[in-house]
């Protein structure tokens, strides 16, 4: 089945997007929410389980105090009100990822409410309002066997590992975000980026999207420009990288725009995001609301965070990422625009680490923002997942500064490192990459001038603009190893 798509900007000329983001973050506590099982990632299946998190008869949960404190800290960092009294609730559903047949969550009494997080996109500030922050337990992991590519569809049976079941999971839900216009996709990405940085600075989670400790559901609806009535929204589940958040918004804008243009209605449903194609496909229809029969969890007593505790935690909050970044920009001479570009491209930390590894701020920024982000996009991976270390980038930058590599060669070196050919110096050695010497350069310049006598004549007549094609030919002849500035000088010299 093919889906008709509108063009993103074209759709947003005529429709106003409304975003909503639900982010789940696994807390970095040592133990699970209601039992003493370890939360360490990557253990063999069903080795971090006990009667409580397996829901065996007679077991009873006891709340992990650190999980409550972490959640309160998240609420405070997001400028939320902290409840004076609230309860856990049972969410009843039948699905083998929860052995108890219910998940302990929070329903109408979340721990934190009414906050916000500010982000900047294209120099424009957007305030994303937070509706609620609540604490719940994570589910187990299912492996679907017998169908295509591990999906439920067509599977003959499923294998369940409960190591993850019961790990504290915080859900952060925004209010509908309006007024983003054409920046909807970038605002969504900037929000998740900013939230990730806030959570990391708080030290409450390792926020590794690739390991699933930070996961995002993206809600989107469109309404005709100027309308006040919200359109029908879709909820795209488990969008698990910053890049994918942006892509999921773009795709839903384009898909929903095409439907509305064709006079069709948008179906309220959950949709699945496909990393490979950047598209979404329909999941469960939400036309009929699920009935989870929430009720107050009878096995747990209420939570009443003392005001002294809350104020004590508030006093421990680190400065917000925006303050830390401003100091970083100041020290390294970056402008506000540089900063925003690096933050939203997700390379600020990488640039900082590359500077720390010895490269200049300008070169560090140039490498990540000007080249490696683009390479990551071409390779369809997150920039942080590129197979090149900050030390390697710093080394390449150093060789470029010292004139041992041209920019073209330096990029070839970076590509080879990313392709897994080896470390920087080994790659240069094995390819024999080095800047062309003066003799080699003169040979290439003379050959290029001889091959294009008409251009050589123009240069002789003082037409500086004619130098370009000859520089290009020299570059080609030397495999990018020519120093372009020196080549230009030689061309002017040898043409006359």
């Amino acid at each position, binding site marked *: 089945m093919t889906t008709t798509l509108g063009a993103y900007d074209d759709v947003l000329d005529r429709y106003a997007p409304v975003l909503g983001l*639900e982010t789940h973050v696994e807390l970095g*506590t*040592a*133990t699970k929410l209601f*039992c*003493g*099982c*370890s939360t360490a990632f990557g253990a*063999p*299946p*069903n*080795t971090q*389980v*006990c009667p409580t998190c*397996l829901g*065996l008869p007679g077991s009873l949960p*006891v*709340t*992990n*105090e*650190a999980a409550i404190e972490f959640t309160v800290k998240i609420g405070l960092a997001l400028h939320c009100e902290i409840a004076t*009294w609230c*309860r856990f609730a049972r969410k*009843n559903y*039948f*699905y*083998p990822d929860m052995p108890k047949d219910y*998940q302990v969550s929070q*329903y*109408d009494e979340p721990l934190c409410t009414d906050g916000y997080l500010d982000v900047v996109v294209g120099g424009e500030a957007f305030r994303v309002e937070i509706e609620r922050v609540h604490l719940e337990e994570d*589910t187990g992991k*299912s*492996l*679907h*066997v017998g169908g295509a590519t591990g999906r*439920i569809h067509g*599977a*003959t*049976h*499923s*294998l*369940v*590992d*409960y190591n993850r079941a019961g790990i504290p999971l915080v859900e952060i*839900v925004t209010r509908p975000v309006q007024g983003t216009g054409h920046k909807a996709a970038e605002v969504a990405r900037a929000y998740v980026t900013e939230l990730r940085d806030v959570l990391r600075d708080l030290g409450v989670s390792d926020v590794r999207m690739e390991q699933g400790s930070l996961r995002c559901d993206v809600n989107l609806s469109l309404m005709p420009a100027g309308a006040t009535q919200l359109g029908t929204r879709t909820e795209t*589940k488990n969008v698990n990288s910053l890049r994918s958040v942006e892509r999921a918004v773009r795709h839903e804008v384009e898909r929903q725009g095409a439907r509305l243009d064709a006079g069709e209605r948008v179906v309220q449903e959950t949709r699945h995001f496909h990393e490979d194609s950047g598209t979404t496909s329909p*999941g*469960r229809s939400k036309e009929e*609301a699920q*009935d*989870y*029969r929430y*009720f107050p969890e*009878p096995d*747990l*007593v*209420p*939570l*009443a*965070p003392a005001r002294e505790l809350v104020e004590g935690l508030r006093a421990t909050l680190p400065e917000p990422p925006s303050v830390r970044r401003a100091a970083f920009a100041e020290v390294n001479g970056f402008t506000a625009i540089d900063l925003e570009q690096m933050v939203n491209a997700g390379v600020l930390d990488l640039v900082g680490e590359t500077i720390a590894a010895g490269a200049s701020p300008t070169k560090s920024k140039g490498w990540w923002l000007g080249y490696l982000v683009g390479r990551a996009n071409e390779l369809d991976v997150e920039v942080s997942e590129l197979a090149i270390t900050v030390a390697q980038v710093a080394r390449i930058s150093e060789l470029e500064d010292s004139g041992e590599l041209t920019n073209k060669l330096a990029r070839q070196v970076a590509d080879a490192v990313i392709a897994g050919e080896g470390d920087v110096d080994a790659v240069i050695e094995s390819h024999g990459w080095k800047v062309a010497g003066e003799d080699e350069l003169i040979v290439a310049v003379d050959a290029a001038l001889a091959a294009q006598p008409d251009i050589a004549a123009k240069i002789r007549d003082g037409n500086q603009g004619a130098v370009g094609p000859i520089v290009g030919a020299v570059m080609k002849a030397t495999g990018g190893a020519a120093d372009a500035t020196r080549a230009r000088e030689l061309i002017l010299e040898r043409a006359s």
Partner: protein
Amino acid sequence: MPDTNPAPVADGGPPALTRDDVARLAHLARIDLSDAELDHLAPQLAVILESVAEVSQVAADDIPPSSHALAMQNVFRADEVRSCLTPQEALAGAPQVDQQRFSVPRILGEEQ
């Protein structure tokens, strides 16, 4: 995000539990009740609820609703790792085991 809950029982009034309600709750709880069982159980459940609802007649406005029998709050555990079950112990009650995981029948719904 929470979805809708069933409407709460009206203040103080007797809960109206119909045969259809019982059938729906049975379905949600995955209990397969026959028509005869519904005919038999629905009126009984209604009587139980009515009896419990009598409590609300003595509960004055100054008595807050309670979901717990214990007048306690903030019962916590320190974040310290305790030993877990071995995988053999954990999987001992599983109907089927494959790759050290619980093997369950094909899942017909969607992931939650």
